[in-house]
């Protein structure tokens, strides 16, 4: 595989990471919460789709459409039960509470489903198998293209929502100053709940993409969380478009890393993440000094 093609595949992979990361970015942007159960919620979404496919026999896409409202409600409930309470406590509390939630989700999934890996690639039809060969050794898969287009649409729609609609302004206002927002009549509890609902729904979309492009099992969550978080950090925390770019950067790093050594793919992503952390948080100079 040529280097250029590897980078292109990285872009497609990165678009998937960006969708996974989007929900995490929303929750951080609005509530300053990093939901350590985010990856598990995405996997939960994949399982909900899986159950619908198994029981209703429909295609994965229709199943996802049916799963979406379930996930939206789940997100809303999650906020008003667990997350709202942890917001009011210390800075560490949301991390601890969501970590506990992560363990609960993983193990409930293990109890409900077998530990075997599953995939929904088969139920997604021809989409998962078609691809086109372009000049220069470049290969474009239908699935990769769809994920990329959907990613751009989702991020674009979110940006428009936040920039042009009154509810979007309310969300930004609450994110910037929840106290002042309450004083002008904005129900911050409601805003947070809707933000979480959106984040969970998009996480479910990420889980859906995971299911049709690859395999998943009850303990896939933490891996998705790490990739999502890396994408958010690489792109710059608090920036929505940054998360899209960060996801793509992560994907490209991984596919280029795979060119060096097949086992090096994920590591390359980790290294990019760590380098960005070092550079951005000024530990760089100290490390350079120590390395000299």
């Amino acid at each position: 595989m040529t280097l250029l093609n590897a980078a292109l595949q990285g872009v497609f992979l990165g678009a998937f990471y960006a969708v996974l990361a989007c929900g995490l970015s929303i929750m951080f942007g609005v509530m300053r919460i990093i939901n350590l159960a985010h990856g598990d919620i995405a996997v939960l979404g994949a399982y909900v789709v899986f159950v619908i496919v198994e029981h209703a026999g429909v295609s994965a896409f229709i199943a996802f459409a049916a799963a979406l409202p379930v996930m939206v409600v789940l997100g809303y409930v999650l906020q008003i039960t667990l997350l709202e309470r942890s917001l009011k406590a210390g800075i560490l509390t949301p991390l601890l509470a969501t970590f506990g939630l992560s363990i609960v989700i993983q193990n409930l999934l293990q109890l409900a489903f077998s530990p075997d890996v599953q995939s929904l690639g088969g139920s997604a039809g021809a989409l998962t198998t078609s691809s086109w060969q372009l000049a220069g050794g470049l290969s474009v898969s239908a699935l990769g293209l769809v994920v990329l287009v959907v990613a751009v649409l989702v991020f674009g729609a979110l940006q428009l929502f936040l920039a042009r609609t009154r509810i979007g302004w309310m969300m930004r206002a609450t994110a910037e100053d929840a106290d002042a927002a309450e004083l002008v009549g904005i129900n911050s509890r409601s805003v947070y709940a809707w933000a979480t609902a959106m984040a969970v729904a998009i996480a479910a979309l990420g889980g859906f993409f995971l299911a049709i492009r690859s395999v998943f099992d009850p303990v896939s969550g933490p891996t998705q969380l790490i990739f999502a978080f890396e994408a958010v950090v690489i792109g710059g925390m608090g920036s929505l478009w940054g998360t899209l770019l960060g996801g793509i950067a992560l994907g490209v790093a991984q596919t280029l890393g795979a060119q060096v050594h097949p086992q090096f793919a994920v590591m390359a992503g980790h290294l990019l993440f760590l380098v960005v952390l070092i550079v951005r948080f000024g530990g760089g100079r100290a490390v350079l000094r120590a390395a000299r």
Partner: protein
Amino acid sequence: MKVARWTRTSKLFTGGTAGVAVALACIPLVFESDVVQKLTTLMILVLLAAMWNALAGYGGLLSVGQQAFIGIGAYGTVFFADQGVTPYVAMILATLLAGAISLPISLFALRLRAAQFAIGMWVIAEVMSIIVRLDQNLGAGTGISLIQMNQYEPNFRQAYTFWLALAFTAIFLVALFLLLRSPLGASLQAIRDDEDAARSLGVRVAARKRLLFVLAGFGCGAAGVLIVANTLFIEPGSVFSVQWSAYMIFMVLVGGLGTFEGPIIGAILLFAIQTTFTQGGPWYLVGLGATAALFALALPRGLWGTVEERLGLRLLPVGYRVVEAKGEERAA
């Protein structure tokens, strides 16, 4: 009215711990080797809980990646043993290695804010896991045994391991105890209450946190050493697993974050649960996760913290108390 460290209860109890330590040391002489192995596991849990509490409870540093140091301790032992070093000396070396590696990591990790620090440490653990998986000499993905331990007769080996565990746990607990009773301890309390105010008073926040981070690096490394000594076989999937962080979080949250006695109680509790529910599988983990989350939200001070608050009880005093003239006591 005066400010005092000790109460009668705490004097009795702390004096009693020396007796407890001696009693514990006799265990391998009295019990079967499988009991000794189990109790070694208990020591490991106590050590891990104390170290995670040192980071989060006293330093405000929530790490989801201490398994990095557990892995360094475990694989370090195997590495040194493979180089021909006597196993138990290899263990000391591996512990030192873990502590040594924690220092450069601290240079950048401590600059990270809460979530980045938590997940950053996790990523570091993952990176180490991948490095080990790529190394055939360390057993790659399938794992490796500490075969050099075969030179010891099983009962003796179990006893030596237990005494090493006892020694490590005692050393780290005593170190932490003394640290918290020193002026350093008071400044840590100040940092925990209000970091900016502490900094403006001249408290060198970064240095204090680094000390705790390195101590935890040593301690978790020691735990990793003990794990490989106790179970003899390790693989990257288990020693570098984030499951260890889950256990540490449970023990400390339920026991009592920021108290000295709390993590010990949490460790004993987890040990009791583990030995009772060995067949539990996912259900018991669901319980652990849910309990940890519940405690984080509803009982942030943990079991011991709540008891301490209600009864004003301190068994191992690291703080001060205000003693009223008539001999009545109120916790400071």
